[in-house]
């Protein structure tokens, strides 16, 4: 694997291979010495043009557990605020000798530009680009679902027969897009549930079912209910009348939580707007994997960095 830009590039076998390596990486977290020497002497740059808590810390922990050196870069307080271009930033990182660049950018496609631009030879990992993709989040979601369903027997398995409802702000969500491609190639069925205003144009050829009605969709019985964050920072128009109405029609509130099957997995990529798309009770319920997702994120990102950075001969 040279870069990880989109889950669309991953075949079922690729995805299962990454998740299986992540199983091995997850073992390390349970040990006294939480460190592996696999990426000694490699430099990983976290290049973050957008704010992030979880993803940046997660990538940093992942790189450090593999003994790589980590350089954190956030656009605030850097020369980007003086007007430096992506190209010049990339060339600076190349000159420093970065082996991998983990990039988050507000513009969809920025990681692809870095990968194809010829400015830098490093492996590029997309850590979220605009409203396009967030592949490691989808991988950790798939990993979390697989572990909840199969526990210690997860290795080698896909997600066949699993039904996933992705609920909320699909329009602005790169997490939703990455999950749609990944979960369906792993054999799951995906149903998008959102107000019509928060569904993107042109999803007719996406491999998903679409519904505007959350209660009806939950009534069908879903293995997984994945709530998306209402992304107020990307909303420059009125997509729904007000928060209360959104919450009543598309939020996972206490009433809907009580109606869910006992084994239903409740997911949220974070950060959560408690009381808006998900109630506090739902977020902290036994079915909720919110914190597991964060834990698993480190293992999945270790797997991705390892597969990207080891191997002199690229396969």
């Amino acid at each position, binding site marked *: *694997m040279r870069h990880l830009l989109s889950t669309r590039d991953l075949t079922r076998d690729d995805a299962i*291979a990454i998740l*299986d*390596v992540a*199983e*091995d990486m997850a*073992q390390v977290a349970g*040990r*006294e*010495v939480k*460190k*592996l*020497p*696999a990426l000694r*002497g490699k430099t990983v740059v976290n290049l973050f043009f957008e704010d992030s808590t979880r993803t940046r810390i997660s990538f940093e922990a992942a790189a450090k557990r*593999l003994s790589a050196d980590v350089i954190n870069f956030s656009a605030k307080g850097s020369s980007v605020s003086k007007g430096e271009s992506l190209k010049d930033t990339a060339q600076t990182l190349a000159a420093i000798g970065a082996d991998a660049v983990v990039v988050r950018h507000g513009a969809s496609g920025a990681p692809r530009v870095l990968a194809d631009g010829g400015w830098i030879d490093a492996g590029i990992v997309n850590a979220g680009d605009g409203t396009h993709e967030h592949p490691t989040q989808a991988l950790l979601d798939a990993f979390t679902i697989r572990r909840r369903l199969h526990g210690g027997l997860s*290795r080698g398995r896909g997600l066949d027969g699993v039904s996933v409802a992705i609920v909320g702000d699909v329009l602005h969500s790169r997490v939703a897009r990455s999950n749609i491609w990944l979960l369906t190639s792993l054999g799951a069925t995906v149903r998008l549930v959102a107000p019509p205003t928060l569904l993107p144009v042109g999803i007719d050829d996406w491999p998903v079912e679409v519904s505007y009605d959350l209660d009806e969709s939950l009534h069908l019985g879903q293995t997984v209910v994945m709530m998306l964050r209402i992304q107020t920072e990307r909303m420059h128009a009125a997509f729904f009348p007000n928060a209360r109405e959104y919450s009543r029609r598309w939020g996972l509130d206490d009433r809907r939580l009580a109606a869910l099957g006992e084994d239903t997995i409740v997911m949220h990529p974070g950060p959560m707007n408690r009381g808006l798309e998900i109630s506090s009770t739902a977020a902290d319920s036994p079915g909720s994997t919110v914190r597991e997702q964060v834990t698993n994120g480190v293992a999945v990102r270790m797997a991705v960095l*390892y*597969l990207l950075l*080891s*191997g*002199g*001969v*690229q*396969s």
Partner: protein
Amino acid sequence: MPAHPVLQQADIARALTRIAHEILESNRGPSGLVLLGIPSRGVPLAKRLAEQLNEISHADVPWGSLDVTLYRDDLARNRTRTPSPTLLPPGGIDDAVVVLVDDVLYSGRTIRAALDALVDVGRPRAVRLAVLVDRGHRELPIRPDFVGKNLPSARDERVNVNLEELDGEDSVTIGSEGTRA
């Protein structure tokens, strides 16, 4: 040159029985022993050795697997290797006499990696090394404690170990590079 057989099924069984006796003799019984196989072919060998030990000494010797992939010194040079699971027995390896088990001992680099991997999962009282085949050409100061067969070989030859559990039959063959029995 086609690969020619060096050990047959009965030879492998005999070698493992002898190693089991040697382990018990040097350890003065089965107490404190833990066998750890190095994936992939060391793992079934460790399991078989544990069964032999249990049969001879009526003990319950714990065994497991120790993956060394992420500790190798050639990760940056070769193709990406996929790690295998490390499965330690429930009692762990602290203060145990760990016997590392592998199929072929060659440069010694795998064992070097295994020693590094071992200290990250616990602190054994002692570490021993059992191999089915020692083909020579060591590149590091590492020496096995228990050997099934010493097999002098040329560097460009290839030693194949086949085991029932993974390959459908028990055999050890030697041939020129690239031939696989």
